[in-house]
């Protein structure tokens, strides 16, 4: 029946009408996963038996007219989210047999909303990457062309959504790890404001940056899932006490007179094909009534330095807990990338170097935050390409000492400032690879960012490029 191709919205409609069951959808997803296991390798763990049981339970609730936001919908979860009694590895050999005794808050909320967990997706080990090539369990391949990478670190989740192996997925972003693989895989990826979604139970990468968020087929799905995930959590002291918005309600409002900021510095070094398609997309928004304004944003090249230092320093601290005593295997099993990052972080925090590196990076972080604050006085959102390149071929990250940090130049500034940003697909290259555009908003402006994204999506819903499907 190909029910795995449905969006969350369409799946919910069909379940309500009793056109099909949750078991039907779940079976179709599992079939698609099994068919493409070796071609794409998006999953570390496939929860086939549990998912089928949960689908049957969901069907019983549906037949009793129970209504939960994600009841009966199969969702794929990035393998850095703790899942009770389901192996959680962060795609690392150190945690290859680790089974958490608790659920992360994100997973608990998804379960409370009736979602079916279909499996745990592949990622760059410890989320250290922008390709999913540095997974300790083999790379995930881009469904649009399996000789190419899906991006990362949420590459497994993005690929699973693009390949219709799940109806939606959960990822996490420290600086680019949701938006960039969403861009390379042609799907919608939302990085909420830092603190909007609880980090409790997420295997920590950089604690001042990590932001869990949804990866979906449509913007409407993204808004729906954000509402489920967002909110203050007693278990995460950095989670925001601000009220959660009615994200799905606001997205249909038009964008007349909305002020969109474009900065030249965010088009420097971007492949011409990408820049052209993104600029065409921005023109469409202008035709719909938005006002385009040239702004001068702080050069993103400095964000690479700030992010490299802060992230690697926080990583060196967070990964100290993997001592092989209370859980996991011994530290000699860290991969090359993890070792590189831990050691650079250790160096940057060590006596004699702390001021030169970590302290300096934190000061430039303030400069970046202030720069965005100033920009948002004259514009409502900032738009530009998500990634300077299209998906790159398998093998592109070998022996690169900082592949990820350089690849994520255009998304690092907004991550450093804790802002929200969404990637939406806006077309394809001549080589049939997806092109993504990002919409960045101030902290807690998810409603606005979703509204702009939804407007573009609906305006272009019948365009030919949307009819393309990955050849698998």
């Amino acid at each position: 029946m190909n029910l795995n191709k449905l969006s969350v919205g369409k799946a919910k409609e069909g379940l309500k009408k009793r056109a099909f069951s949750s078991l039907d959808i779940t079976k179709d997803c599992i079939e698609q996963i099994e068919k493409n296991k070796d071609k794409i390798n998006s999953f570390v763990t496939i929860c086939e038996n549990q998912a089928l049981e949960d689908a049957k339970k969901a069907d019983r609730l549906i037949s009793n007219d129970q209504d939960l936001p994600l009841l009966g919908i199969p969702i794929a979860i990035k393998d850095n989210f703790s899942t009770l009694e389901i192996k959680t590895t962060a795609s690392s050999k150190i945690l290859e047999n680790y089974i958490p005794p608790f659920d992360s808050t994100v997973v608990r909320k998804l379960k409370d909303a009736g979602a079916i967990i279909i499996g745990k997706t592949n990622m760059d080990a410890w989320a250290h990457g922008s390709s999913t090539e540095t997974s300790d369990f083999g790379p995930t391949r881009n469904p649009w062309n399996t000789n190419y990478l899906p991006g990362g670190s949420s590459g497994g989740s993005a690929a699973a959504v693009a390949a219709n192996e799940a109806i939606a997925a959960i990822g996490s972003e420290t600086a680019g790890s949701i938006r960039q693989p969403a861009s390379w895989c042609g799907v919608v990826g939302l990085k909420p404001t830092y603190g909007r979604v609880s980090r409790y139970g997420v295997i920590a990468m950089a604690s001042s940056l990590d932001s869990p968020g949804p990866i979906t087929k449509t913007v409407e799905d993204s808004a729906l899932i954000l509402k489920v995930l967002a909110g203050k959590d007693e278990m995460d002291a950095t989670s925001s006490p601000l009220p959660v918005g009615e994200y799905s309600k606001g997205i249909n409002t038009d964008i007349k007179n909305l002020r969109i900021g474009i900065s030249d510095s965010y088009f420097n070094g971007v492949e011409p094909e990408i820049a052209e398609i993104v600029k065409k997309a921005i023109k469409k928004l202008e035709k719909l009534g938005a006002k385009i304004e040239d702004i001068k944003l702080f050069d993103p090249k400095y964000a690479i330095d700030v992010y490299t230092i802060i992230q690697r320093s926080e990583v060196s601290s967070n990964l100290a807990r993997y001592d092989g005593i209370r859980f996991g295997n011994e530290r000699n099993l860290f991969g090359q990338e993890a070792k590189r990052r831990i050691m650079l972080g250790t160096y940057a925090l060590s006596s004699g170097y702390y001021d030169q590196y970590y302290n300096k990076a934190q000061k430039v972080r303030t400069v970046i935050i202030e720069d965005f604050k100033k920009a948002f006085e004259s514009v409502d959102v900032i738009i530009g390409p998500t990634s300077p390149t299209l998906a790159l071929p398998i093998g592109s990250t070998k022996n690169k000492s900082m592949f990820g940090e350089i690849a994520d130049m255009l998304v690092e500034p907004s991550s450093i400032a804790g802002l929200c940003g969404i990637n939406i697909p806006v077309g394809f290259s001549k080589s049939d690879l997806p092109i993504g555009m990002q919409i960045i908003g101030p902290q807690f402006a998810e409603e606005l960012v979703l509204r702009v994204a939804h407007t573009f999506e609906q305006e272009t819903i019948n365009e030919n490029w949307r009819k393309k499907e990955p050849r698998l």
Partner: protein
Amino acid sequence: MKIDVFKVAKLANIPLTKEETNLGKQLEETLSYIENLGEVKTENVEPTSQVTGLENVVREDKPTPSLSQKEALQNSRSTINGFFKVDAILEQ
């Protein structure tokens, strides 16, 4: 700038193999890439350690459900009598 890879590895408690001693060169590469951070003027700029602006987030001092001892120990490769077993750090 030359990095003492062995010193850093010791601080980070990362065992290095012979092949991995060239990690020093890669670390130096990364450091030279981020040198240009010095170009940014930061006199009188306060460092930011977190972007939420939240301070002193506390909860009521009431015990709440947590992990059982069994759950807390279940992922360890080496336990004894309800304790984690570790290498000796003191000599007799």
